[in-house]
């Protein structure tokens, strides 16, 4: 197995199962300074403002408890467990397990599925061919474009930007339709299996080129709105080391699984990590915007991607792990396969570090910053509220 159990080595990816995953190893030792965030002691005048789990401003059900003396947030706790799903995966064969993995977070189904399948392939000693790996990169970058569109759209909503919000929403829908045509399903369901990816990029680049132009125009417009930028700049700064994905790269950390994980051959693409230094909401937004353009470049560099039909997977035994860069950060899967069935499986979601970073970044900021900040991390509660059985 590529990832060895042992002492911590490399940057911290996050907790999963009973372990802590680092960029090079899996360890049962947490990183220094990663203890539980201290519980805020209520000071006189403060009160607990409950937001969610069922409220208009949140897409998913999350309970947020803001402790505030009024206006300013002194502490926030996020409870993602209101709709915890208990997913049975252990004991399932690989084919059945993929169906479940796809549904852990439907919007990011390809990131989860590809990481899971790469881990399974390692466990079974399979070597995916170059065409399949290209198809996987294509999926991940399409998913990244759509996901970043969604984040940018949601960031515009609290500002009341009806026009750009709907324009970006429409671009997101156009990308979904392109995915649907290329893969047969707009969330890549049923596309991936070990050694196979049922997606082609026939006629895709021309359509994406139009979307790129459209987005360039809208994004430039957004960056010219002083009111919008004033709200985002210097707000909710986080620069800690326990960051992942765009939040990390917005804080000056060159953390990207596309660069420091060899699960997929990104070194053959024009991938460039987008790094900004300020760590505020604006930096997270600009990182996502620029990553969209980079994803377009990566997709257009892939050449022809053809559907690679499914292959029969031999019932094997072994353990494997893999890490890919989802739109929100590192997704890591560990699997232990015994005679073709899953004996053990656990994963690391970027949401864990993003929620922690969100909670820290809110301190000392105002409630009006909350929605912008929450969306800038692109947190998906569906990935967090899962118990794998």
């Amino acid at each position: 197995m590529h990832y060895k159990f042992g002492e911590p080595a490399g940057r911290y990816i996050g907790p999963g199962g009973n372990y802590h995953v680092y960029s090079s190893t899996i360890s049962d030792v947490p990183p220094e300074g990663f203890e539980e965030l201290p519980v805020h002691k209520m000071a006189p005048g403060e009160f607990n403002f409950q937001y969610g789990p069922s409220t208009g401003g949140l897409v998913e059900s999350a309970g947020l408890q803001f402790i505030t003396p009024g206006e300013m947030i002194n502490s926030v706790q996020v409870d993602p467990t209101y709709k915890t799903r208990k997913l049975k995966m252990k004991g399932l064969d690989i084919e059945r397990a993929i169906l479940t993995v796809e549904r852990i977070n439907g919007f990011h189904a390809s990131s989860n599925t590809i990481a899971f399948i790469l881990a399974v392939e390692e466990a079974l000693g399979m070597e995916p061919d170059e065409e399949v790996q290209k198809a996987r990169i294509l999926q991940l970058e399409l998913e990244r474009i759509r996901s970043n569109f969604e984040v940018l759209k949601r960031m515009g909503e609290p500002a009341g930007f009806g026009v750009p919000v709907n324009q970006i929403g429409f671009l997101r829908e156009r990308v979904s339709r392109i995915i649907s045509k290329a893969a047969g399903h707009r969330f890549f369901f049923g596309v991936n299996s070990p050694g196979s990816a049922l997606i082609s990029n026939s006629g895709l680049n021309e359509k994406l080129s139009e979307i790129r132009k459209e987005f360039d125009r809208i994004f430039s417009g957004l960056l010219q709105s002083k009111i919008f930028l004033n709200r985002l700049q210097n707000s909710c700064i986080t620069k800690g080391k326990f960051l992942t994905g765009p939040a990390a790269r917005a804080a000056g950390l060159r953390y990207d699984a596309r660069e420091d994980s060899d699960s997929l051959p990104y070194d053959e693409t024009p991938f460039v990590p987008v790094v900004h230094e300020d760590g505020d909401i604006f930096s997270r937004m600009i990182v996502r915007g620029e990553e969209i353009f980079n994803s377009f470049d990566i997709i257009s560099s892939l050449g022809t991607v053809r559907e690679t039909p499914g292959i029969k997977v031999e019932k094997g035994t072994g353990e494997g792990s893999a890490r890919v860069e989802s739109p929100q950060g590192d997704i890591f899967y560990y699997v232990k396969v015994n005679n073709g069935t899953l004996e053990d499986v656990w994963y690391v979601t970027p949401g864990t570090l993003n929620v922690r970073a969100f909670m820290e970044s809110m301190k000392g900021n105002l409630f009006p910053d909350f929605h912008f900040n929450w969306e800038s991390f692109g947190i998906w509660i569906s990935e967090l509220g899962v118990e794998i059985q």
Partner: protein
Amino acid sequence: MFTYLAIAILGISALAGVFWRPGAYAGTIIGSAYFILSGFNPADQMSYFVLIASLVWIIVSLYSMSYDRKYGKWLAPSLALMIMGMMIILQSTNYLLLITGWEIMSVPAYLIVGLNRRESSPAFTFMMFSEFSTILIIAGSVYAFFVTGTLSFSYVSSYGPLLLISLGAIIKMGMTPFMISEWLPIAHGNAPANASAVLSATMTLMGVYVIMKMILQSPDNMGVGYLFLAIGSVSILFSSIYAYISENMKMLAGFSTIENNAAILSAMGLYLVASTSVLREFIFITIIIFALAHSISKTGLFLSIGNSPGEFFGQSDHPTSYTQRVGTMLTTMSLSGLFPTLGGLATWMLLESFFMEAYSGGATGITAIVIGSLIAMGEGMAMGSMMKILAFGNIFRRKLETKQEPNHIIISGVGLLLIFLFGISVLIVSGTFLSGIPSILIFNGYMITSRFGPADFGLISPDYILILITVFSLVAYAVFRKPRLREVPVWNGGAVEVDSYTSFAFSNNIRLMLKRLLRTKTGSLGSSVTVIDVFWLLMTDIGKGYKAMSKFITLRIMNSSIGWYMIYMIAAFMVIMVIAVKM
């Protein structure tokens, strides 16, 4: 001779109060009522101060009958003695009586603050500022004696006595020149509510009275007027901000007192710089109406606060009765400058005065518009602090108490009195500013017209407002009847946990927005938001510096050394000789 009978009654009441508490209050009521009968003359505008103060004393005494049981036997006599001092001030015909009354008023107040608290600092704070005020009044009186050759009140050709005595009175009103200090909220906030009402409503009124008396017998001086405007406008802004962020209800009311007195001081400053005699007359009436509105409203507010088991908003979770809510609502409306209460009229007249002066143009006009705007800002902030005390002290998450205590009725009575006074306010205003528009049923004499010359500037008809509100309310009630209320459980985002919005959170926006001004500090984990009163900090630093200097002189220079003592005696002798020769 009969004029002094009221003072004698209060003296006897103070003595009686040592043995029989209700006797002191009954005596105060009788004495105050007699004081009105003997001292109030509608034609004499200065005598309105007698009416205002006496009304407050009567209300407070009625309230105190059942209030002060927990405060021991010294509260009632001290209160009576303090009121007696104020009566002496209002009846004084010379500087000696004024100073005597000033001290008789101050010493029992010190006793009340001191006996009420375990800590000695509020009483000492009060005493320190009180005595500083007395020293300035004595200095002003001596100056006036040297100028006029008599201790009796008469025209003084120099503005020096006006300046000195006014500065002394300003300190008593809670303002220290060019800044506010929180001595008044500390002192008034640490007294029992009935005493706080007398301190805030009438002790500060004595300051207004003395300044006005000195203005009327001094030459016009623009410099003093601008000084009053500067002190008033700065104080009104800061005190309204500090009131808004205060978490102690009594201290909030204390800051509100400074804010109102600062508004009156600004009006007195405007009186001194006003360009026309018509405007000056209008301003004088404004001062009286503002003083009346403030005194009655502040009394109601302190009495309402007195019904709370604690002084902090966080401790205020007791049930409140409907009558108390109505009374508190009307008093806070008045202190917010809202119609149909007397405070609404007072605020309108004050702002009209400044806007009229703005029409004169030049430096005075610009000053008037700037200070008028500052006052308007202060009034806006005051509305916020009053809504805070109304909501968090009486309504928000409070159970409704069905049992009516006599004090609740007194509080609601004060609120209704403010509406009544609003209705009859045309009786206070001189005929120059009364008119009417019979074509729309505002009969002559029922409309107050602001003017600084022959032409009208603005107008208002208190009775018309009252009638309109009453008629429309009755019509709405007749048509729609009592609205059908539907109560539903609180939806808290689907979570069970329910916490309450706090008064601290209500005013935290200002703490954060004005963080440079208020020196707001946001603590790290486990602490909250704190502000520093820079003025009070400066005051305490000056105090500490003075103490250090005294210690240095005591130990190093005047340390029983006969040599230094001789040098001091010789130097003092020479200074006195020089002064004597010069004079």
